[in-house]
């Protein structure tokens, strides 16, 4: 073997074919559940390029990601929302590594196709409670939201503009998957999930006529999007960690971000 023990990684050589200098070490990352697919895919590729790197990602939630990056449990923490004021006080380095769209989803049986941001706010504040007000059938709207502290929820509330005014009537489902299952199971529900979780058991609504696609987020016509942020303590990063971040922010990494349904930063 010719592994580069403890050596420095001056340069990111991924993507070239031969004569690679590889790094070694362990990367423990974790945090947001929404970023899981992107993080796992990039870590996998990074570990393939650097076979002596072992990497793991624990999807325990955005706030947990920040907290554990601070306590040192995670070398790299991720959040699927902007870093809050009190979190900024921890003095962690932040880096946006991708953007994500949040899809507004309903049951495929639901006739409604489009919704406005204004209507979304009214629904989530409990001001609109019947689908017929949106041109659907005469049925109660079942509002599904995420747990408090979720990056997805934080971002959604911020963008839609009803922060902390969520109707008391909302059903809270834990995780993107539970939102998805809950919506898939009941034709009167409305919920929201990260783009990466859109599949055929549910239907994504167009927001103000714009389809929920990566392109539309990039050209800023689709309104509901948020950043994926990673945070770390500079002196807690090992060589592998540093090299990984470079890789993620580089061309290769961003290409994977896109493959996984995220929106690259450049």
């Amino acid at each position, binding site marked *: 073997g010719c592994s580069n023990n403890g050596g420095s990684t001056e340069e990111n050589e991924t993507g070239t074919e031969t004569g690679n200098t590889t790094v070694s070490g362990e990367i423990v990352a974790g945090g947001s559940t929404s970023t899981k697919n992107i993080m796992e895919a990039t870590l996998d590729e990074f570990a393939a390029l650097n076979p002596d790197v072992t990497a793991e990602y624990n999807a325990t*939630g955005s706030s947990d990601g920040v907290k554990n990056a601070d306590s040192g449990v995670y070398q790299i923490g991720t959040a699927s929302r902007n870093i809050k004021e009190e979190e900024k006080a921890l003095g962690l380095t932040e880096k946006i590594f991708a953007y994500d769209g949040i899809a507004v989803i309903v049951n495929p049986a639901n006739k409604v196709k489009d919704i406005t941001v204004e209507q979304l706010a009214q629904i989530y504040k409990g001001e609109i409670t019947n689908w017929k007000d949106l041109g659907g059938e005469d049925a109660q709207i079942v509002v599904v939201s995420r747990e408090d502290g979720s990056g997805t929820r934080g971002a959604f509330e911020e963008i839609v503009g009803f922060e902390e005014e969520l109707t008391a009537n909302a059903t809270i489902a834990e995780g993107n998957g539970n939102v998805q299952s809950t919506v898939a199971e009941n034709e009167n529900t409305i919920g929201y999930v990260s783009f990466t979780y859109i599949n055929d058991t549910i239907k994504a609504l167009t927001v103000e006529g714009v389809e929920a696609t990566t392109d539309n987020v990039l050209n800023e016509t689709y309104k509901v999007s948020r950043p994926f942020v990673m945070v770390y303590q500079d002196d807690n990063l090992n060589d592998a960690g540093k090299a990984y971040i470079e890789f993620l922010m580089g061309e290769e990494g961003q290409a994977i971000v896109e493959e996984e349904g995220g929106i690259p930063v450049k």
Partner: protein
Amino acid sequence: MDLMKDNKTDKTRKENFFKYVFMFCAFVAVISVFAITFFVFFRGLKPFMPGTNGYSIVDFLTGLEWRPGQNKFGILYMIVGSIFATAGAIAIGVPVGLLTAVFIAELAPKRLADIIRPAVELLAGIPSVLYGVFGLGIIVSILKGYSPYAQGQSLLASILVLAIMILPTVVSMSETAIRAVPSSYKEGSLALGASKIQTIFKVIIPAARSGILAGVVLGIGRAIGETMAVMLVAGNPIAGIPTSLWDKIRPLTTNIALEMGYASGMHQDLLFSTGVVLFVFIMIINFTLNKIIQKKIS
């Protein structure tokens, strides 16, 4: 005289050494138990301590809204929901479980009992997540058809899922207790011309009471402590005392599990406080039921 004691032999040394090993293990066990208790209480009571800019315990225990973002941490509606869900689960699960136990222990032909018993035990081994998934896929879907609201997530759904989950505990504990009733009671009753059913209900079940109650205690523990299954079917709203079976509830455990990954600072401490409330709950129930058992027996 050769009966005299000799404390210095290898044998006595070994005896003593092992005695201390046993004792040490007992203490490890005890210490871990107390460490948890201490830790949970320490974290959970921290926000209420005077001198910290914490949270008022009264607001915490009587509040009707849980909006961490707005600094509103009220858990009264959760307490009420937990109590309703547990009580409902017991009201359904205990009788059904007890009667099933009676069937297995006293009425069923041996072969049938030998099939049902392990089958019911199997229910206890299924991870609770699957109960949740089952609850969401089947129970919630069915209830949706009858609910005045447009969804099936509700107190009733929680009750049903929990009732199913406590069944195996209640069945196997009750069955063991029924089997443990001295056959002299049964013989005494039958010899007096009582029928089998009379014997079961007038003598055997009363005599097995303490074992059955122990099963109920464990069942309650499971019902209150269950997290993953109810989370999927309770609805977990951020406010609102349930007033009907169709209302959503947010059980205490769910509150912890939902947000622990996301909470920090006082929000997290208050999740621990929720844990303390749960802890106290279980203690009170254990304690009262033990008292009831003791009183009935003496």
